[in-house]
């Protein structure tokens, strides 16, 4: 799984020069790989619903009434708010998501902090230290 995640990280290092079609292919390959790494045994939180495959990194905090899967990867030290629903989505390391997020086919860049409530997105890369939806950088792919 690590090499798939590294490929994604490299492809989004320079935000201004992201090749979206290339990113889409790398992202899809990584999603397919999650099924070989299903791991949900180590998280802090209140019994979310998991539809396999789901990969949880170390020290992941999960809020109340959360649904994860299928095909979800969450990196190390991430924090998900209450009522979060993720499917076909990759969250890289050190990401914080607010309450009531619904993400499908999304990628959230390392160290992003989405400190607000209610977001519904599909097929995009999300980046930023955002206190509101308006401050969030979004690149469709």
């Amino acid at each position, binding site marked *: 799984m690590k090499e798939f995640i590294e490929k994604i990280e490299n492809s989004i290092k320079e935000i201004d020069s992201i090749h979206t079609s290339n990113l889409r292919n790398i992202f899809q390959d990584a999603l397919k790989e999650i099924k070989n790494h299903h791991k949900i045994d180590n998280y802090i939180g*209140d*019994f979310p*619903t998991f539809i*396999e495959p789901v990969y949880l990194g170390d020290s992941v905090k999960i809020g109340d*009434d959360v649904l994860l*899967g299928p095909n979800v990867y969450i990196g190390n030290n991430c924090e998900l708010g209450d009522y979060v629903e993720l*499917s*076909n989505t990759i969250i890289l390391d050190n990401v914080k998501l607010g309450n009531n997020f619904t993400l499908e086919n999304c990628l959230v860049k390392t160290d992003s902090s989405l400190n607000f*409530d209610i977001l519904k997105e599909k097929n995009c890369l999300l980046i930023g230290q955002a206190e509101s939806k308006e401050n969030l950088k979004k690149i469709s792919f």
Partner: protein
Amino acid sequence: MSDKEEREIGRIQELESTNLAREEIRDLVIETKKKVERDNDILAERINKEFVKNNIKSFDIVGSIGAGKTALLEKICEQISSKHRTLVICGDITTRVDADRIEKHNVETVQINTGRECALNAYHINQIIKNKDLFNYDVIFVENVGNLICPSEFILGTDKRITVVSITEGEWVIEKHPMLFKMSDIAIINKIDLLERLGTDIDKMISNAKNYNPKIEVITTSAKTGENINKLIEIMGL
């Protein structure tokens, strides 16, 4: 609606009782509950159309923890996996124990861990099938979360619902759970290999099931010895 109210409504829905709602939010709770049930039914209908379009036979298997749902599925899959491409969706609060057992019989499995929810719903099933090419399957089983109460609230879009009870649960188990038997197509009374020792009144169980639902097919089985498994597969049309 404030965040606090939203949470409160969420909790009440989980408990499935409007009696707990404060007077000020009672109407809202009832309306929301109705909408959730309606949305589940609409989604289940859509799922069933997809199954029918792809010529898939589908079954929702319901029963208490320890009734023998997984053991029966193991026996069924063992018999049919060479002729039917089979997907088994397993619902449990936690663990992958059932999926691991069933997977040994050459079928594909997907485990759903519901955490705190006591039944699968159509949304869970939809999340799985929208990520699958249904053309690759002939049969889909859903093994629901183990209990005889919550699953009656949510249809999943399968062709048939099968309720499994075992004689170790006592001869009143069907009489005490009318809703599920009214909504089921097949009732399985399992663990009949223990009949001599337990002396359970199976005729009473059959008659209770038929009273609640005259159209229900009732079959006695033993997943342990394999008794009547072939007959069950025949009734299921596989």
